């Protein structure tokens, strides 16, 4: 019986290039299997973080269990895991894949194979998943399913002729997809009789239940009351509840057996004891060896997070700890800034990842943040022969102690239609890119390969790319190595005082330009004070750019007519409120937004 049940389980995920309709397809599948009534059905059910819905992207993996009555008369349990499409969130994809046995590859019938289509497929194949394609958006007039199928076979090398053709938007062809899941994705292996062995692929925190651990059971059974051991941390806990995933809710069940995907709670106090990637086993009857964990993802971008209200430092720490629980790639450690007080230096996979974490802290934890300039990790080779990793520009040793510096370089792959190749190449040149190759995978699709310094990419490269290709270019990158480079530290002085939080490392050639833009932007951001404020950019004490915020000359309300003072009070209160959102640097008050806005130099929004 149990074996039977295992035969009728399918664990799968959906992978796609961003915007190819992955989340919409997931919604339709949920709708089709009747987990939700129409009334409960909201667009993009799986994207339940506010930020995800707003931006139309998937950040966190989401998991849902469905029951499907197949055409062969049997009932199947489908565990579907939605995965992020953006390159920054590759680690999430990787984690989800480890819990699956197969993947649906969604390809846009109008766009065809794109950079992340390939990246995600390779990731899935690396995890030994069976992948089958689905052609989406066939309702669009420009859809060319036939051509796209050919392309899939040609470029990716997987069978695509019998790929279901669907319109997730209209809900057509969904049954076909589900039947393909049953046919093409294998039932999970594993021995329910063997000692318990589960992989933690995600977790979340609930203030009532503590840490909720998401697991894929490889072998054995996981039951309430069982004492389990986290093999990596060595911690042991008693299981309080086991269950499966409904959309947006947890549904308790008796037990989770081999092949199943679900969750358990164990009133885990210390969230560090239940790390994603760890293996959970039966404390009384442990399995011989742990499952291979995930490849540790290394942050590429660092920046400082400081609570706007300094008193909220402990809250920020708790919030980061909770976010890290289901976002293993987020790193943080305490640091202090003269300008901003106590905060954390945080490591991210990319700039979008940074922004998402920032927004989640603001929205989910209501912590207003001041963010410092993002920085990559530089290697500083000192004259004494040692080499240090520099994640915070403020910590740059004295120039006399520096032999030379190296910066991280990425292998960038830009896929674009031929008419934009020229402008994209120009952009890459401007960003100190080293040309590697151009390849036409089809007559109207070119892949440009460049080696680019990562610090040129983390600012606004993605935006620039989109604007110079009218949104057609897609970009994928991975860290390749470190390269010796002529780097300098650019300091910003406001009213003659250096603001440590605004210092950053920049290539010597771009220093003047960057300094000038920073000053201009700060001039816009800093409100006029009662005195004149010089804003200067300097390298090693030498001023290279300057702007001035003129002194406020007039701020007076003429009249309180007929004894109506309410407007006067409102105005004064607004002014006072505004002050609270400021950071005091010497005698200058700087709006907190300035710290992030000065980084978006070319972004007029």
């Amino acid at each position: 019986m149990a074996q039977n049940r295992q035969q009728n389980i399918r664990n799968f995920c959906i992978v796609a290039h961003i915007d190819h309709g992955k989340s919409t397809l997931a919604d339709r599948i949920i709708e089709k299997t009747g987990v939700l009534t129409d009334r409960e059905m909201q667009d993009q059910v799986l994207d339940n973080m506010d930020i995800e819905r707003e931006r139309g992207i998937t950040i966190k993996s989401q998991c849902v269990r469905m029951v499907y009555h197949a055409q062969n008369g049997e009932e199947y349990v489908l565990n579907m895991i939605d995965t992020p499409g953006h390159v920054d969130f590759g680690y999430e994809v990787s984690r989800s894949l480890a819990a699956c046995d197969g993947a649906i590859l969604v390809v846009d019938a109008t766009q065809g194979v794109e950079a992340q289509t390939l990246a995600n497929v390779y990731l899935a194949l690396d995890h030994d998943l069976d992948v089958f394609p689905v052609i989406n958006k066939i309702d669009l007039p420009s859809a060319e399913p036939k051509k796209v199928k050919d392309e899939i076979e040609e470029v990716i090398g997987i069978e695509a002729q019998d790929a279901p053709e669907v319109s997730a938007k209209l809900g057509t062809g969904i049954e076909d997809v589900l039947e393909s899941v049953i046919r093409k994705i294998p039932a999970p292996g594993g021995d329910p009789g063997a000692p318990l062995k589960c992989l933690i692929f995600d977790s979340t925190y609930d203030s009532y239940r503590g840490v909720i651990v998401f697991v894929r059971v490889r072998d054995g059974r996981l039951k309430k009351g069982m004492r389990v051991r986290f093999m990596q941390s060595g911690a042991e806990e008693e299981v309080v509840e086991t269950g499966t995933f409904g959309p947006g809710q947890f549904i308790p069940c008796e037990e989770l057996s081999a092949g199943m995907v679900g969750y358990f709670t164990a009133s885990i106090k210390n969230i560090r004891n239940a790390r994603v990637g760890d293996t959970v086993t039966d404390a009384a009857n442990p399995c011989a060896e742990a499952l291979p964990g995930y490849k540790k993802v290394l942050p590429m971008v660092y920046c400082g997070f400081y609570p706007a209200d300094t008193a909220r430092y402990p809250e920020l720490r708790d919030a980061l700890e909770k976010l890290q629980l289901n976002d293993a790639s987020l790193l943080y450690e305490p640091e202090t800034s003269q300008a901003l007080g106590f905060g954390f230096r945080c490591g991210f996979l990319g700039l979008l990842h940074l922004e998402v974490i920032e927004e989640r802290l603001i929205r989910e934890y209501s912590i207003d943040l001041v963010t410092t300039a993002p920085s990559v990790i530089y290697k500083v080779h000192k004259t004494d022969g040692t080499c240090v990793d520099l994640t915070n520009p403020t910590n740059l040793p004295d120039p006399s102690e520096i032999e030379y510096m190296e910066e991280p370089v990425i292998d960038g792959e830009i896929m674009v239609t031929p008419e934009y190749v020229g402008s994209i190449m120009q952009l890459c040149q401007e960003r100190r890119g080293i040309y590697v190759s151009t390849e036409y995978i089809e007559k109207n699709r070119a892949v440009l390969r460049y080696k680019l310094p990562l610090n040129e990419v983390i600012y606004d490269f993605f935006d620039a790319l989109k604007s110079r290709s009218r949104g057609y270019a897609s970009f994928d990158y991975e860290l390749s190595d470190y390269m010796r480079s002529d780097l300098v530290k650019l300091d910003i002085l406001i009213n003659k005082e250096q603001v440590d939080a605004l210092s950053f490392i920049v290539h010597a050639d771009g220093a003047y330009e960057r300094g000038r833009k920073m000053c201009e932007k700060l001039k816009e951001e800093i409100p006029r004070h009662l005195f004149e404020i010089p804003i200067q950019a300097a390298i090693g004490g030498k001023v290279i750019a300057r702007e001035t915020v003129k002194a406020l000359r007039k701020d007076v309300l003429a009249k309180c007519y007929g004894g109506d003072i309410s407007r006067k009070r409102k105005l004064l209160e607004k002014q006072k409120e505004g002050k609270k959102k400021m950071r005091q640097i010497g005698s200058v008050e700087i709006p907190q937004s300035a710290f992030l806005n000065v980084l978006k130099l070319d972004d007029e929004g």
Partner: protein
Amino acid sequence: MKSLALYVHIPFCAGKCYYCDFLSFADVAEDIRLRYTEALLQEIAEAAATLPKQSAADFEVSSIYFGGGTPSFIAPVQIERILNHIRDHFHVRTGAEITLELNPGTVTYDSLKAYKSFGITRLSIGAQSMMNLDLEHLGRVHSVSDFYEAYRNARTAGFRNISVDVMMGLPGQKYADYLNTLREIVACKPEHISSYALTIEEGTPFHEIYGSGRTARDNALGLFRLDLPDEEEERKMYAETANFLVSAGYHRYEISNFAKNDEERPHRYESKHNIVYWTRGDYLGFGLGASSMIENTRFSNIRDLNAYIEADGDVQKIRENETVLDIRAQIEEFMFLGLRMMRGVSFARFEECFHLSMRELYGAVIDAMCRDGLMQEDEGSVMLTARGVDVSNTVMSHFLLEEEQKEEDAFTGGDEEKDQDREAKEDGPPQDKESEEKP
């Protein structure tokens, strides 16, 4: 006997000026205007009967102000009815200041004579500029010669206390133009001059034109638009107003107000009515949208004309936004309203009102402001400097208290003695108080 100031709002005008966001209407039929007066009379009677805690007999009216709108736009006989009605229901002190706002072009010698005959003591004339071009740009209904005529008639009718309103920073206005306006006005020797910088208010035609700077659309449409004077120019006008008026025998007693010097009674020509607002005396406002403060409770009247007329004086229906000021709000107001007066706020007076030391509460702020040259201390008071006046909002915002401070026990003590405070304060009109403070 407590002092009380009365404000009467007449929300009608011959035309709506382009910059004006006051509560007034230019296109109301005469019968509506008459019904408004009736409702106003009802409100006055009811308000007198429902003065909180006290009866009207406990109050002595020290000043009355007819504002608008354009009070001179309605028939003088209506003003007379209102004034007589007030006298019937309130005790109006002998020699009370009774001001009427008027616009040139809406008065004649006869009407001015009438105002004088039934007891208006002071006129406030909205001249705004002495250049016809400026007046046109502002959408004023009068011309420069209308002003002269009205002014002459007012003098002939016997008015010895006249205030003239002037505006600076007008579209297309140059420093020299403004100075010329000031010169011409001073040549008329009014007893009082109010000088306001033009502000662009939301919901006015000016806001649509000047609210967001010149747009590409303006250019594309070839819309004609004069530029507002830049900040430097406007500040120059502002600074010169004070210099020029002081040299012409006026003194500034409030941020925007200048009074003619008088050897025997230095404060003679200051607006007693407006000083009540700045010194937080009790005042009652009648009519559409009028504001009141009685015994540290603020409220205002509804702003819907039909609803006001409908309510027919029922103060229950008319009044809204009632706010009982806690001690924190009282202190804040004391500071930011008091600082509008050039004499500033007195340490002794503060302690008298709140049984708290101003030095203890605001010492740090005051010191910082004095250090930055925005305030100065003189004879037991603190006041704005000229530079402080320029940026007075910034200065005043520092006197708003933090929420935590509000919770502090120190603040709760004052409540009981509040009534006595008020008694003490209301012994005389605020400006008399001031003469006592300043030797």
